[in-house]
């Protein structure tokens, strides 16, 4: 896929046209940022179809709220914050449904089972290291996975992550430290060769 890179001027121009109701101008912005938005959502919800649906919702919401976008700030970060927010809402809604279906700790257990417990030997032989890391990220507890994805896929700042996840910047740092520690441990358990993680 050819990713359209937009200059700052082009972005501002397209934002202004979109604000004036030009949907084709907004479509150009979607084209330029669809991979980042979809990817962020996908890494959070771990389901392509759901990610596509949530991405659509995020773009629609962005279009509706374009008036509140500060043009002095990067559009990408603004879009990704909306996308992450929609993905988090999706996760919360799923968690509510799961809790309703299974109830409390049982739900956590069931979700863990649904995410697919790893078979270390099989995974190591089957996956490349980056696949193993991605797999390990998908098994992180939700708060850690959210922080890791927002930081290492979406490139959001700690302040942005803190605002999105309603915690302090320090707590974001602590969550990320714990997540990396858990990833190291998980990869070591699987015997995955490593560079920086373990």
């Amino acid at each position, binding site marked *: *896929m050819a990713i359209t890179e937009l200059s700052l001027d082009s972005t501002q121009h397209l934002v202004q046209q979109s604000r004036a109701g030009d*949907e084709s101008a*907004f*479509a*150009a912005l*979607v*084209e330029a940022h*669809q*991979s980042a*938005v*979809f*990817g962020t959502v*996908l*890494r959070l919800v771990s389901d*392509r179809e759901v990610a*596509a*649906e949530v*991405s*659509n*919702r995020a*773009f*629609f919401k962005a*279009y509706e709220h374009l008036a509140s976008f500060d043009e002095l700030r990067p559009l990408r970060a603004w879009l990704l914050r909306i996308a992450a927010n929609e993905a988090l809402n999706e996760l919360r809604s799923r968690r*509510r449904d799961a809790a*309703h279906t299974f109830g409390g700790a049982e739900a956590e257990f069931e979700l863990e089972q649904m995410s697919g417990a790893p078979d270390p030997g099989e995974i190591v032989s089957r996956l490349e*290291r*980056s*696949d193993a*890391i*991605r797999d390990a*990220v998908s098994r992180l507890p939700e708060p850690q996975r959210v922080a*890791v*994805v927002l*930081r*290492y*896929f979406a490139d959001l*700042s*700690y*302040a942005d992550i803190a605002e999105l996840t309603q915690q302090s*910047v*320090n707590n*974001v*740092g*602590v969550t*990320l*430290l714990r997540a*990396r520690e858990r990833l190291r441990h998980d990869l070591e358990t699987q015997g995955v060769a490593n*560079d*920086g*993680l373990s």
Partner: protein
Amino acid sequence: MACPDELTLDLWLAGALPSEEAAAVASHVQTCATCAAAIQAAQALDAELHAALALDAEELRYVSGLELASSWRTSRPAAALSWGWIALAGVIAGFAAWLLAAPMVGSAADLAIQVGLGTVLLNAVLGTVFSLGQALLDLTQSPALGLSQPLLALFALALLFWPRQLIPQRSPHS
């Protein structure tokens, strides 16, 4: 300055430390081999996580095929018709009905009383119906939240009957 702890170093690398503390860490790490090694390891890890989480070629093809540039419009939600708007429409409709019907049943004073009473009654009825409906929904989804709704329904029922005590009974001949 002693070596910063792991969290401080991480926040510094992320540019999330207050400027004064950041300056102190910056000046320390310039001369500390231990911290320099920790920073190098952290940066290698960051790079590895970035690379591992990036969309692969197959995922990029998938997102390309989604045509989000056109499909985002399809998630435009249908105009949400909330219970609040339905209740308001009901009250307005009731009010209009009372206005139309009142001249046939009484004087101007009666009209004022009936309009006022009609509005209150209609509001209470709608409130009761919607509160009970919402309570049923909430009870199926969240028992804790659902507890508040029956109380609201009881309150609405009280509103339904209480205003009747305030209206003087009309004689059969009036």
